[in-house]
């Protein structure tokens, strides 16, 4: 019983640690709880979908999908185009999603192909692929748009006549999903429509796990060799996991940006991957195991920390910058720590699984002892 409790504590150590940090930081920041609650409810709608996009690759054994920024780029391309065409409101959001779908699927396919060539180091490869594609994205958005791809709205172009400005005001689609259906509870505004989309996504993921493809992904994720031997098309399954993840990341980025209302053309996507991954890990997920509760807990905790830490830092040492660096440190640090822990755990598991074969602790004197197990 005691060891069970210990196991539970160890399993949730990260979550508990962050609950503790935040429990200390909130009083220091002296921020009104109602404000915090509203902030978190908004941010939950803004970010949860993006974090959900990470679940499938984890299931397929490909680790944290650092390549999700590809999806984010696809979503941004869609948003830039609908802004140019001046399609507004919820139909603008829908159209952006439709336009970016093939782009995301194409990028996801490329990403899957590349990762299949780098088995065992998917994460670092996906990470670099994100940077590489960022170059291609810049080529497209900074040069081709307005030059090769006609852009009619001068307002979003740079003054030189081609290339998209650093900031694009998404006034047309701004919060059109969030404001579709707002319910006020105890003075807090809930973006119910967005929540419904997220809930539908969760339902999809639960359903998907029960499908043949979902089962295959789990099998591939646990043991590629066995899956291959049983006739599961491993490479295809991995590509599909990444394609779905990229597509979801694309939709997630659209939801994220319609809430913010402005597109930071050359930076928005860069942070997406890291913040989503950090949130998932803070929610208690690991490189090989992630669930929907991890997503929800992670988004709430990560963003609480995000909101509170600058103010808390300022009140504590009189430096807002300190809090800013602190939260960056946490984002990077949590990823580093959980990668390290995962690596250790994997080695410890291998060692433990062989423990039974060692005769060290009780040198068997006869054939009866130690067994032939």
């Amino acid at each position, binding site marked *: 019983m005691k060891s069970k409790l210990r196991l539970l504590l160890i399993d949730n150590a990260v979550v508990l640690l962050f609950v503790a940090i935040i429990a200390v930081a909130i009083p220091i920041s002296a921020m009104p709880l109602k404000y915090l609650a509203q902030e978190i409810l908004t941010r939950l709608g803004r970010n949860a979908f993006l974090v959900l996009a990470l679940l499938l690759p984890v299931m397929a054994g490909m680790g944290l999908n650092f390549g999700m920024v590809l999806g984010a780029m696809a979503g941004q391309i869609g948003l830039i185009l609908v802004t140019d065409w001046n399609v507004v409101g919820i139909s603008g959001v829908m159209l952006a999603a439709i336009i970016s779908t093939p782009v995301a699927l194409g990028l996801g396919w490329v990403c899957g192909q590349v990762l299949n060539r780098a088995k065992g180091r998917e994460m*670092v490869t996906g990470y670099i692929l994100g940077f590489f594609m960022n170059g291609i994205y*810049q080529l497209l958005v900074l*040069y081709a748009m307005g030059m090769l791809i006609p852009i009619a709205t001068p307002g979003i172009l740079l003054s030189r006549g081609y290339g998209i400005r650093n900031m694009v005001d998404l006034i047309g689609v701004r919060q059109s999903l969030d404001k579709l259906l707002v319910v006020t509870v105890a003075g807090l505004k809930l973006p119910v429509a967005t929540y419904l989309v997220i809930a539908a996504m969760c339902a999809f993921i639960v359903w998907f796990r029960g499908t043949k493809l979902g089962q295959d992904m789990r099998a591939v994720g646990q043991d590629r060799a066995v899956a291959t031997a049983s006739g599961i098309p491993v490479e295809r399954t991995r590509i599909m996991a990444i394609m779905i993840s990229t597509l979801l990341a694309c939709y997630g980025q659209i939801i994220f940006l319609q809430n913010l209302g402005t597109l930071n053309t050359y930076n928005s996507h860069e942070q997406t991957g890291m913040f989503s991954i950090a949130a998932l890990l803070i929610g208690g997920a690991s490189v090989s195991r992630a669930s929907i509760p991890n997503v929800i807990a992670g988004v709430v905790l990560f963003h609480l920390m995000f909101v509170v830490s600058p103010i808390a830092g300022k009140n504590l040492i009189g430096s807002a910058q*300190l809090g800013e*660096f602190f939260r*960056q440190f946490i984002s*990077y*640090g949590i*990823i580093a720590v959980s990668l390290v822990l995962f*690596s250790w755990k994997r080695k410890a598991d291998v060692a433990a699984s062989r423990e039974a074969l060692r005769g060290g602790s009780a040198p068997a004197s006869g054939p009866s002892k130690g067994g032939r197990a």
Partner: protein
Amino acid sequence: MERIREFVSDFGLPRIIIALFLVLLFVAAPFVGVSVASSLSNTIARFGMNGIMVLAMVPMIHSGCGLNFGLPLGVIAGLLGATISIEMGLVGAAGFAAAAALALAFAALLGYGYGKLLNRVKGDEMMIATYVGFSSITLMSIGWIVLPYQSPTMVWGFEGEGLRTTISVEAFWDKILNDFLAVRIGERFVFPTGMILAFCGAALAVWFFLHLKSGSAMTAAGSNPAYARASGIDVDRMRTGSVVFSTMLGALGIVVYQQSFGFIQLYEGPFSMTFPSVAAILIGGASVTKASIANVFLGTFLFQGILTMTPSVINSVLKTDLSEVIRIIVSNGMILYALTRKTKVAK
């Protein structure tokens, strides 16, 4: 024909394209009104500035730790050395020597811990190194704010809250190596003899070490850890040693960089140092498991050459600034190529 194909597959197509591209840039330069002399001078200066940081990749690749994405640790040690030297008010050669010595000492310390960590996460070094690097940069950013520095050159004027983002070393040891025995040819060409000598010295030290008994053990540990272990080598110790060595080179590299650049860049400065260095050694012909001093020289020259030439030449041709995009695509494309290629070969 066969020989050409062999050469291409040995040398790697991307490398050849990059080399040809650079040659093309130099050929095209005069036609678009870009001075070859000043371009070459710039290229050589940047070659010297970045060379030691590229060299910092070599020991870790040799011992099998992969690409040193943890370079920021070395850079942080370098920043600590430089800022403390300025804090002590040392100028000229003494200041530079103090900065370098302190940087090396910090690097040895950080590298040791970092090496121990990497030994426990074998196989996952690269991703972990990246994030350990990033988190130490942000941790150090907190450090730059809270550490009790006093020197008015470095501390923000009236706010008094931490160090400045960029610190000029003009009054201390600006270009101290560059100007040492510098050779001036014509109006636009300067050869920074001292800095190039420093680079060559560091390269010689690495070369010398790799030819020692212990250096050979490091190479064997990287080439085949199982073989090395069976030969009685403590592979973990070799790896730790290589990480310490790499980190120290990184620290020295950034100090040399600063004296040429004229500024110390704190806070998020170290972020931008890693990828160019990794990309450079790969362009020079190294892989995730093999690297030589020649790879360092060739790669640094090619990569820095492209960085220098594209803004001037391409921009004059296309009338637009593509250099940033080209830098991103070339450097990350090269790393991507190396990561996906090795698995294929290993099979």
